[in-house]
């Protein structure tokens, strides 16, 4: 078995584990939770094997290098760190209830890998990319992203737990953030099913297949239906959001633990992101081109992300900023992370012609 088989197993495992964790949250059956953990651990082991094998394979192809260079490799590394972080939390806090909130983030990254059709091959590197600074930059960025992802999940749980009134802005905020997250996830799943089961143009990969089965479909009927379903879903979530709150209450996760975890994961992520994401990125650009900062959209979005988390760290010193507001900042921070990594390529490059011209 090669790295891609191990990785495939891990992908399926994480998705199945996600379903078990969600089921566990709904029906609160302990065995289901234990199965979820077991599958997660097994997938994590398989994923680790895939990572090591891929490294070995790159040497066999004569390009020996750490598997952290392209979009595929960095996203899978992100998932790896995220699951590792999750398992650490599960063990230290002795609760599985976080699983249902954290594994979907992994699911989203994996879904994106499958659907965007990004290349999974081990490819030779352009000269500019052959740099240890870049390697350190990518590795540390993704470690920090996974820490931020954890803070996103805990901050989201905090908001769910703390907002009781349906008209409260923070209630609406988490409904929208959570709702969009699951709509994106569901959209990807539908794309995936359509691509694998119906279209089946194997060979040619589904580059840019994202949302082609829903929001970006050819038929206006499908597009309108997708929007309608999404709106209904969000309204439903808005109506029945308290069920989620009751569930979190049932598992006796205190708001203090959530607040603590959010803060802790950000204090771990922030220095790593500062060093790896911003500084090593700048040093690499300086080594390669002699410009440590050029305000390109990706750099700027990293800076925005950094500023949001700096904002988060300072809110403690502002009178009256407690609880919900800070949690909302943490959630926004991770939305900026996602946008830095995916949105800049998908959205901004489509906005300008420089992405489309190639």
């Amino acid at each position, binding site marked *: 078995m090669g790295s891609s088989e191990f990785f495939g197993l891990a992908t399926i495992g994480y998705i199945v584990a996600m379903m078990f964790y969600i089921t566990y949250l709904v029906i609160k059956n302990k065995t289901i939770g234990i199965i979820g953990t077991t599958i997660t651990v097994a997938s994590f082991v398989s994923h680790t094997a895939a990572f090591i094998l891929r490294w070995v394979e790159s040497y066999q192809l004569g390009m020996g290098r750490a598997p952290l260079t392209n979009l595929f490799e960095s996203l899978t590394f992100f998932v790896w760190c995220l699951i590792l972080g999750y398992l650490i939390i599960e063990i230290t806090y002795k609760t599985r209830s976080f699983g249902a909130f954290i594994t979907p983030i992994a699911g989203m990254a994996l879904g994106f890998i499958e659907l965007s059709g990004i290349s999974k091959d081990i490819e030779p590197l352009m000269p500019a990319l052959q740099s240890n600074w870049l390697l350190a930059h990518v590795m540390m960025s993704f470690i920090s992203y996974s820490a931020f992802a954890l803070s996103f999940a805990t901050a989201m749980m905090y908001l769910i737990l703390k907002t009781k009134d349906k008209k409260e802005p923070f209630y609406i905020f988490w409904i929208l953030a959570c709702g969009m997250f699951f709509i994106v996830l569901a959209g990807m799943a539908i794309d995936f099913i359509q691509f694998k089961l119906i279209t089946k143009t194997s060979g040619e990969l589904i580059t840019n297949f994202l949302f082609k089965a829903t929001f970006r479909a050819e038929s206006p009927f499908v597009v309108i239906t997708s929007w309608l379903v999404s709106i209904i879903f969000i309204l439903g979530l808005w109506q029945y959001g308290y069920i989620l709150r009751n569930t979190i209450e049932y598992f006796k996760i205190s708001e203090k633990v959530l607040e603590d975890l959010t803060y802790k994961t950000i204090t771990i992520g922030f*220095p790593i992101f500062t060093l790896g994401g911003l500084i090593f990125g700048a040093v690499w650009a300086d080594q390669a081109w*002699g410009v440590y900062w050029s*305000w390109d959209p990706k750099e700027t979005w990293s800076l925005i992300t950094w500023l949001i988390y700096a904002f988060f760290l300072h*809110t403690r010193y502002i009178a009256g900023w407690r609880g919900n507001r800070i949690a909302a900042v943490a959630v926004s921070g991770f939305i900026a992370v996602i946008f830095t990594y995916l949105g800049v390529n998908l959205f901004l490059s489509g906005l300008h012609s420089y992405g489309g011209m190639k």
Partner: protein
Amino acid sequence: MIQLGHIASVIGLVTGAFLINIPLGYAREKSKKYSLKWFVLIHLSIPFMIAARLFLHVEFKYVPFIIIGAICGQFSSKVGDKLFKFFSSVKLAAVLIAVIAFTSIIGTIIEQNGDPQNNLKLIERIFGISSAPNIYSIFYSLGFMDMYHSIWFIAILVLFCLNLIICSLDRLPRISKIVNEPLSPLKSGAASKFSIHKELNLKGNIENYRGKIEIFFKKLGFYPIEAASDIETQFYAQKGAFTRYGIYVTHLSIIIILIGSVIGVFFGFDGFLNLPEGEVSDVAFHKNGSGEQKLGFSIRCDDFNVEFYKDTDRPMRYISWLTILKYNKEVKKQVIEVNTPLKYEGYTFYQANYGPMPPGKGVIVLRVTPNGEAEEILKLKVGESFNLAGTNLTATVVQFAPALAFDKDWKPFNYTEMMNNPAVFVVFKEKEETKLSWWVQKRYNKTWEIPGGHKIELIDNWGGQYTGLQVRKDPGVWLVYLGFMLMVIGLFFAMFTSHKKMWVIMSSEKGRVIINIAASANKNRTAFEEKIDNLSKLLS
């Protein structure tokens, strides 16, 4: 781009408006509100400011800044105090951080310094075609097309720096007092007020525990001080007080990085140089097209080469062999690649790109090894011939191809004008009669073996390419790197270390010892508490 002289005029004007209004404002405060004198004192400076503005050619858009300067001057006695208060607040910091983040988003949506057509299209898409040109010109005059260099974005950054500096100055005295204050023993009864507090009631007397307590402190890395009174014995210690400075180091680093980048913008050089193989240059060219810059030394490209991943056209390395000459003497030789630039006298030369010279430039370098003879290096032009030693054959280099390929009829053609597969077509003749014609390809050593056991290697087409160098001089970059280091060091102490204090108070009571442990930490208290919990088990 903004110009240094112009900025100085703007700043001068704003400062002038401020200064002139200080005495006017002082006099105004003394006069009766809404009286004629009061009215005159407020408006007296306006004609002067208008005149000065026109004289200095400062545009109308700076008028708001001038007015702000004037108002600040009018209120200076109160303003000094208020400004300090204003700039020492963390709330302002949060606002500014949010503003910078938000405006930066706009900068990523509108293409910066890009083709105006793209941005116009974007605006059309959002606002509709009819209003797009107007909206575009509004955005343009507000500087959104080169936002990060616009006066208002820079003004925000200046406010940000002021905020950071003043806020730090405001807090530092308090922090340094906390850091330098020696720890003193606790008053009796104070222990229970601490967030970390444990009370143990144990057998024995104080002397039984003295050694254990010392070990307890050592295990936590503390060096305890002992204080004894007739009723109790105390051990206490603190650790990591200086880590409270960590975040100030980080904040300072932000200022240092910004200063470094400003120095780079004003005193740096950003240019390029396309240098053909074999040629020398003592200048480089400005990126923005504003002419050339004397380097103060010369640089020569001795050779340039691209290496490809095996059998593909994916470039693996771009390599330039460079020599620096000063007063016609070679002073430095270096091979550069992407990611390994050459540095000399403040200038850095980066491998940026490369390209072909016009066809026919350059000499072809061959290593010829006739069957059974010694090898020989030859330098030829297209059309020139040589004799193959030990034979009667005359070989002529008929043609040079930078990127040889064959079409389906086996006709040769160049698939690009870059030197992706350099090749020479060599014709071998014996007494005017063509015996053999052969393509020798640089990247494929099978083509070097000529029938008859001869070997011809194509080493180079020297002088046929230029290396594209990015030339930069950034006298501020070391400050930026210094800032990077300080930022990381500061963040490390701010996030992963803490200022910890601990007191252990023992008192004896009827043959038992009561031990009170009180402790505090400014960060990560739970971890400290856990450690104390675990270690306190050793005592009993």
